[in-house]
């Protein structure tokens, strides 16, 4: 693992909103081809961290390297070029309401990369098949699909351009346990097919154990533990223990 080149590295990333210090120096690195899952309570900065990497939020301090290249100081053009390496599955799928399902999946190919619609349509249908969606769904609109199907479409859109790095933001939130497991299976299979590096954030421990190679826990804006998923039950870290066992008692207390 130590010889594998680092795909994504965060060093001392800080972000505050007014007096609220959300990220207080996040240090994290993901080797190429590994799947890292970041766990942590609500409001601990997981989503902000991902948005900093994607350039949706500008960090106050720190460094974010993609393939060894600093991204924080990049101009719009360079940023757009680096963004082509990324795919993202949003928590609520974030599908475009006004577009049909196949157009959602092919969106990045057509609008972002200038691919011909007919060619992108074929790729979209292939990706739909990969995530277990039939051709009949292609012409529907997102509002006509269930939550689980929307997540599949979101996954198909995230992998449509064969990205090198994929982010999953709470991929199983709001789904029943069986559908959640199906989504987890799909994530593992598709990521394996692509050989992609992934960063996921979730509360769902079943999901963590299924999709993670490595796990990191964020608490009060810092990574307090980072290690292989097999060590998750023996971290010796009382914060991690409390979180993964879902105990109300422990060092993590809910703010009043």
């Amino acid at each position, binding site marked *: 693992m130590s010889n594998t080149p680092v795909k994504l590295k965060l060093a001392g990333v800080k972000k505050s909103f007014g007096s609220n210090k959300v990220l207080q120096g996040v240090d994290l690195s993901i080797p190429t081809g590994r799947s890292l899952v970041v766990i942590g309570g609500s409001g601990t900065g997981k989503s902000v961290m991902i948005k900093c990497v*994607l350039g949706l939020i500008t960090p106050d301090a720190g460094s974010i390297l993609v393939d060894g290249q600093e991204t924080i100081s990049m101009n719009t053009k360079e940023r757009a070029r680096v*963004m082509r390496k*990324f795919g*993202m599955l*949003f928590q609520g799928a974030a599908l475009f*309401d006004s577009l049909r399902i196949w157009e959602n999946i092919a969106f990045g190919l057509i*609008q972002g990369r200038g691919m011909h619609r007919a060619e992108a349509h074929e790729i979209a249908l292939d990706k739909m098949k990969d995530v277990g969606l039939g051709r009949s769904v292609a012409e529907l609109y997102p509002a006509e699909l269930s939550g689980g199907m929307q997540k599949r479409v979101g996954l198909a859109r995230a992998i449509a351009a064969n990205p090198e790095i994929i982010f999953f933001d709470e991929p199983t939130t709001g789904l029943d346990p069986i559908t959640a497991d199906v989504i987890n299976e799909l994530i593992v299979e598709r990521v394996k097919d692509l050989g992609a590096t992934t960063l996921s954030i979730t509360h769902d421990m079943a999901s963590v154990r299924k999709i993670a190679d490595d796990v990191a826990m964020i608490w009060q804006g810092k990574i307090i533990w980072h290690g292989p998923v097999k060590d998750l039950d023996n971290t010796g870290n009382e914060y991690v223990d409390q979180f993964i066992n879902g105990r109300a008692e422990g060092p993590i207390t809910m703010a009043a």
Partner: protein
Amino acid sequence: MTSTPHDTAIVNEVEKEAKVVLDYARDSCQAIGQTMMHLFKTVGCLSVFIFQAIIHVFLPPFFPRLIARQLIDIGYYSLPVVGMTALFTGMVLALQSYTGFTRFNAESAIAAVVALSVTRELAPVLAGLMVAGRVGASIAAEIGTMRVTEQIDALTTLSVHPFKYLIAPRVLAGTIMLPVLVLVGDIIGVFGGYLVSVYRLDFSPGSYLHQTWDILEAVDIMSGLYKAAAFGFIVAVMGCYHGYNSQRGAQGVGAATTFAVVSSSILILIFNYILTQVFFS
């Protein structure tokens, strides 16, 4: 000279009153300061937003399908509401002018009043306000919903700049289509005046049209169209700005829609005065 307990009580009372006044003055200054800071911040953010919107209108890549869709949404679908507004405004104007002008035996000026009022002022301002209500609200609600459901973030992750995909087509379509709507509104408004004058007030059709044609100059029409372009830009930009910066779920989208309509309506009235001053002073 020694002070009595009564004097001490008065002094304490005065000090207490003075403290209340000072606290009130400090709070008032703070409130004014915060309001001014908020105003400057908003103006700054809006200026940057407008600058970026204009840049993205002119720089490739372009999205012709989206521009065409917005031209139809903003222009074609606003025709009924703008047409009805212009028709009844022209009709009412003719009736009211007749009522007033008969007092001075100046009924013959009705055609001129209708033509000049509609082309210079009423068609652009009323069309602007109607489009602000119909289109500005719709733009703010659509983009605001996209913001709170992370669809705008999704655009960025798919290598599509939100300004190019969402803002530029709407701003371009608003600026192009409102003059077209106003041109149609001019014709319908004058026609409304004609209908009332000829069929209700027994004016001669030929004479009415002749007077209308005689009084109108190119500047009357063009000033209205320039105003319309400015109003279309204002409506689209304010809708996009408030939608793009929408916060806090459904409540935030509702607030963005309200702000978009109110701010664009007020700006239309302010810019109407400024542009009238520029064209006719």
